[in-house]
């Protein structure tokens, strides 16, 4: 690791010491970050098991209860919001994939006029302040009947989901050599066979990883569903905040609601764990 490596034999033991120190430092650093990153989550789990009366006066020693779980999961229409959120966020990601992957392909494969400009425009949607677009969208949705509908929300969520997916997947397409497609064509594959049998498996890691991130952002979206829905469709974040009741903040219930809210994301994350990191490398993984 260090310059001394080549000097003499005695440095061998010094090296081991350095290695040990390095390992120690690394694990210390990781543990510190783990404390920062994970303690709030652990705290959330602890809170979910506490009664309101113990919320402020106890730290780790308290009498655990499942009352909060009962109150949230059995007592309210929480699951309705859960499934509606699933439809909206899932629908948004599916629409993004259906419309976005071909777009990513075109941006990667073809050289056409203004290509880079167009690619940038697509990306720039992600950067438009939500608060800026929300008012006109609200007015338009009210007029054309998209207010408080699944499709309306799914459509608006494209602002959140589509640019990310297009950009990641485009990187993957750029990495796939044209020769593969040409060879397949010579073998008599039709274009959609090429697309589904050859290209899709190759872009899968990127698609899956960016789709998951897109799903997370859509799932947690707050401002759009707040203004654009409410009567028929309720989403998780807003519903979770409802346990900030008028009497007091039922932190225990908020914790339960948020823990259940993150569960589909965590399950998805564990499922595609292999792809998650690989997938965001924009197809640049070598070897």
């Amino acid at each position, binding site marked *: *690791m*260090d*310059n001394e*490596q*080549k000097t003499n034999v005695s440095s061998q033991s010094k090296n081991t010491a350095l290695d040990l120190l390095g390992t120690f430092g*690394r694990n210390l650093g*990781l543990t510190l*970050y*783990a404390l920062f*990153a994970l303690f*709030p*989550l652990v705290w959330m789990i602890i*809170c979910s098991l506490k009664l309101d009366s113990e*919320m*402020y*006066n106890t730290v780790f020693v308290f009498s655990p209860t499942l009352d909060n779980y009962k109150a949230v999961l059995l007592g309210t229409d929480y699951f309705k919001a859960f499934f509606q959120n699933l439809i909206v966020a899932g629908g948004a990601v599916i629409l993004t994939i259906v419309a*976005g992957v*071909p*777009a990513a392909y075109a941006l990667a*494969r*073809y050289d*056409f006029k203004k290509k*880079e400009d*167009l690619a*940038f425009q697509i*990306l720039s*949607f*992600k*950067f*438009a*302040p939500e*608060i*800026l*677009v929300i*008012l*006109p969208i609200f007015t*338009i949705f009210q007029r054309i009947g998209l207010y408080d509908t699944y499709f309306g929300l799914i459509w608006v969520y*494209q602002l959140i989901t*589509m640019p990310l997916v*297009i950009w990641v997947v485009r*990187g993957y397409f750029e990495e796939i050599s044209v020769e593969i497609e*040409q060879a397949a*064509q010579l073998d008599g594959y039709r274009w959609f066979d090429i697309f589904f049998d050859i290209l899709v498996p190759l872009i899968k890691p990127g698609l899956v*990883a960016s789709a998951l991130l897109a799903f997370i952002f859509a799932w*947690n979206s707050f*401002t759009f569903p707040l203004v654009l829905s409410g009567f028929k469709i309720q989403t998780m*974040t807003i519903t979770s*905040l409802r346990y900030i009741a008028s009497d007091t*903040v039922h932190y225990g219930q908020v914790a339960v609601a*948020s823990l259940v809210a993150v569960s589909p994301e*965590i399950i998805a*994350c564990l499922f595609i764990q292999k792809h998650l*990191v*690989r997938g*965001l*490398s*924009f197809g*640049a*993984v*070598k070897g």
Partner: protein
Amino acid sequence: MNETDNAPRDDRINYNEAPVSVRRRPYFIIAPGLLILIGILIPFAIAIFLSFTNFSFRSTSWRFVGLRNWSDAFADRAFYHAVWVTLRYGFYATLTQMVLGLVVALLLRKDTFYSRVLKVLFTFPLMVAPAIAVLIWQLMTSNSVGVLEGFLNFFGVFDFPWASSHATAMFTAVLIDTWVNTPFILLLVLAGIQSLPKSPFEAAQVDGASSWFIFKTLTFPMLKPFLYIALLFRVMAALQEFGIIFALSKGGPGDTLMNISLTGYITAFQFLRMGKALPYLLVLWMICYVAAWALVKRQRKLAKLAQGY
């Protein structure tokens, strides 16, 4: 589908020489995606239009006021304050998260059981909705009933003011932002690290180069395209940050955290002065647009360079 036959054997197909039907094809393929996004573009046009009117939620009628909203904004000290807060918040949040994300990713580089488990666990904060994250942190940072107060007391710090003082409000907001969003950078940097070729590093080690030297001359430059992408997405989000600050202190104390998003939102949706808020939000959009343009240009260049490996 034989157009590719007459294309040169190159990475790109020269569509200028291809038949018209083929030349148009990319536009067809891209059309559905574009259409969906352009549908959402209409509101931008409307927003720009409305910024020249006195439109508000107060009334169903409106009239043109010319440049009044714009000149009012530029004449208002609150406007420059908001821009300044936006830039400062964007800078602090992004810098903290980039450095932390990069360091933690490098620490995770060695493939051990511990690091494999942590890689998964570390992504979890990203999944918590920011509004909820603030709530958790608010409970933890409460001076009277929070768990962190006890922790800090142990170190002899009492009544750390967190979000309630002008001096530490920005720090607290950035801290929560960092908690939620560092995993995003972490993921991208880890992806970058995975894509690094092995041979240059092996060669450097054989030559006995120091870790710092390897990082400076090999790892960091090679990770740059990934860092740029992470930077791009984070800078944009941090410049526009609304949810965390609004839930934390509504922009207070005083005007400490009143960035453009908050000022715009409160002016439009609470004070019901949409026309007055739109110049703020459009300026934010322009700031984001310019910053994104610069970053993207640089990133595409770097990515192309990196592809040369």
